[in-house]
């Protein structure tokens, strides 16, 4: 593998040259054909209803991260379409999930995003349930006929499994075991040790498009120089694209280097974005004497040395590429994770309860706290000041009223604005369906898998 695009013929498809079979290695190609799907999948209530019946109940859905519910009694809610789930840590350390619906009259039993409790009391008539979902108390029980409540109705449980610090639920209970269903190579998620990171920020904003329009824009880096031109000096937009089984996929994005498309007039003139990334790695850009094509490699070396000095053991288990790059990882159907040595950005594309042209964009930021004055949060993570990085205080979910611009940082705002225009355009009578190219292979792979659920193949 060359250290920079200009050291080799730089073209797509990109192959970083890592050994086949390794986590970084290029996955064997999958032929998903060249079909052009009907764009109605992005806006009709009929297609949305089909997803509600045939997709969501049958897949594993990311409902929580273990970092958010570390101790017995800790719980968090996950709202998905018209459903809502309570995900709670049990006394024995396991995790259970329940529909957040009181068996008495259906009221939402728990009405706060997260917390820690001994029991859940429904605010309507104070029926009380343990963290294990079991009924503990019916107020005025003697006024109920035993035929109605003799079976001691508790909260309805949802099948729950945990992998690599991620908590998944499966509504119909018939999905294959999570590990079998997970399309990523064995050890891929575990390598980042997400269970030892802290959840430091969680935002939920309403975006004006179908949830799949959201998935699609984040599933390719083809749009980077056009929607996010400011990233050209510090991120390479040609990615290694890997397709895995069951609709999963990954793209490796090089961070800390000028894009191959970005003109280099002076090989010692560094982009401001790269300077920031050098500084984040502990290199003073004012005294840096490397050339533009050496920055990514030097960032890797600096991070490796710093990790050794500070005793950050997790870095030993990551490749050099993982220290500098983003492994942008898609979990079918509605999650994409930007995986980095310092932290993981989890993006969840959550369908709206009733409107196929709205979705909720969840951004959950996991961060590995390093308690050392010589270690700072990477600037590009765009974390607002004042966040508790230690894991001591669990943050509330930040929300914005519908229509109000969310405070999610300038790069994500560019995507936020873009999806509205995409959504409006793909409804046009003149639009015949998406023409996905090779850089967009992950999108085709995702839709192909979606169709397997909706067509009854899966």
């Amino acid at each position: 593998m060359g250290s920079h695009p200009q050291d080799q013929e730089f073209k797509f498809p990109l192959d970083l040259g890592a050994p086949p079979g390794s986590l970084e290695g290029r996955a064997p190609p999958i032929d998903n054909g060249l079909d052009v799907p009907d764009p109605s999948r992005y806006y009709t209530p009929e297609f949305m209803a089909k997803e509600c019946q045939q997709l969501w109940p049958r897949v594993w859905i990311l409902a929580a991260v273990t970092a958010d519910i570390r101790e017995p009694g800790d719980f968090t809610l996950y709202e998905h379409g018209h459903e809502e789930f309570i995900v709670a840590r049990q006394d024995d350390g396991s995790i259970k999930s329940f529909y957040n619906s009181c068996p008495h009259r259906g009221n939402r039993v728990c009405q706060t995003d997260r917390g820690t409790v001994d029991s859940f009391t429904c605010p309507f008539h104070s029926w009380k349930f343990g963290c294990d979902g079991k009924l503990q108390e019916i107020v005025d029980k003697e006024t109920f006929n035993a035929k109605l409540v003799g079976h001691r109705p508790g909260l309805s449980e949802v099948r729950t499994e945990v992998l690599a610090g991620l908590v998944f639920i499966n509504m119909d209970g018939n999905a294959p075991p999570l590990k079998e269903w997970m399309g990523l190579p064995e050890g891929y998620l575990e390598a980042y040790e997400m269970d030892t990171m802290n959840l430091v920020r969680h935002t939920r904003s309403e975006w004006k498009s179908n949830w799949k329009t959201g998935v699609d824009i984040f599933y390719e880096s083809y749009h980077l120089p056009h929607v996010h031109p400011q990233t050209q000096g510090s991120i390479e937009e040609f990615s290694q694209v890997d397709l895995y089984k069951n609709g999963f996929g990954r793209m490796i994005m090089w961070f800390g280097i000028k894009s191959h498309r970005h003109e280099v007039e002076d090989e010692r003139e560094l982009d401001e974005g790269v300077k920031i990334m050098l500084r984040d790695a502990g290199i003073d850009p004012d005294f840096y004497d490397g050339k533009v094509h050496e920055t990514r490699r030097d960032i890797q070396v600096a991070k490796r040395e710093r990790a050794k000095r500070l005793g950050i053991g997790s870095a030993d288990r990551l490749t050099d590429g993982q220290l500098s790059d983003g492994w942008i990882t898609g979990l079918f159907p509605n999650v994409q994770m930007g995986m980095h040595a310092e932290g993981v950005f989890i993006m969840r594309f959550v369908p709206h309860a009733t409107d196929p042209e709205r979705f909720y964009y969840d951004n959950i930021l996991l961060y590995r706290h390093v308690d050392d004055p010589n270690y700072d949060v990477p600037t590009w993570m765009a974390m607002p000041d004042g966040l508790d990085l230690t894991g001591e205080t669990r943050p509330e979910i930040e929300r914005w009223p519908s229509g109000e611009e969310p405070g999610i940082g300038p790069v994500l705002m560019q995507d936020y604005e873009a999806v509205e225009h995409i959504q409006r355009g793909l409804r046009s009578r003149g639009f015949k369906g998406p023409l996905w190219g090779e850089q967009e292979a992950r999108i085709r792979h995702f839709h192909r898998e979606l169709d397997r659920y909706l067509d009854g193949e899966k």
Partner: protein
Amino acid sequence: MTAHRRPVARLADLPVDSNKAYKLDGHSVLLCHTKSGIFAVDNRCTHQLATLEGGRMRGNHLFCPKHGARFDLRDGSTVGTLAKAPIRTYEVFLEGEDILVDLSGADASMESKKP
């Protein structure tokens, strides 16, 4: 000012990570001992008026044991969307092993003053 300080409990009665309610002038006041100090607040949740005693604590936060409403013990402010109004806080002092509460000051800084 010191006339309003009332001895309420002994330190030994209130281990770290516990809370206990005391009746003071007809007021139910909750003493909360967290790792960062001792705090005194009204023992009544502003969400649905449940007693807060027995609620779990994390960092500087207290969770109502009934519906999970969350409050910052330092100033009584709400965290999250469930409770709309803050809980009242009282200033806490330590004299030797005695925990004293000043019932007159409701809005002053509530960080406990450890010797």
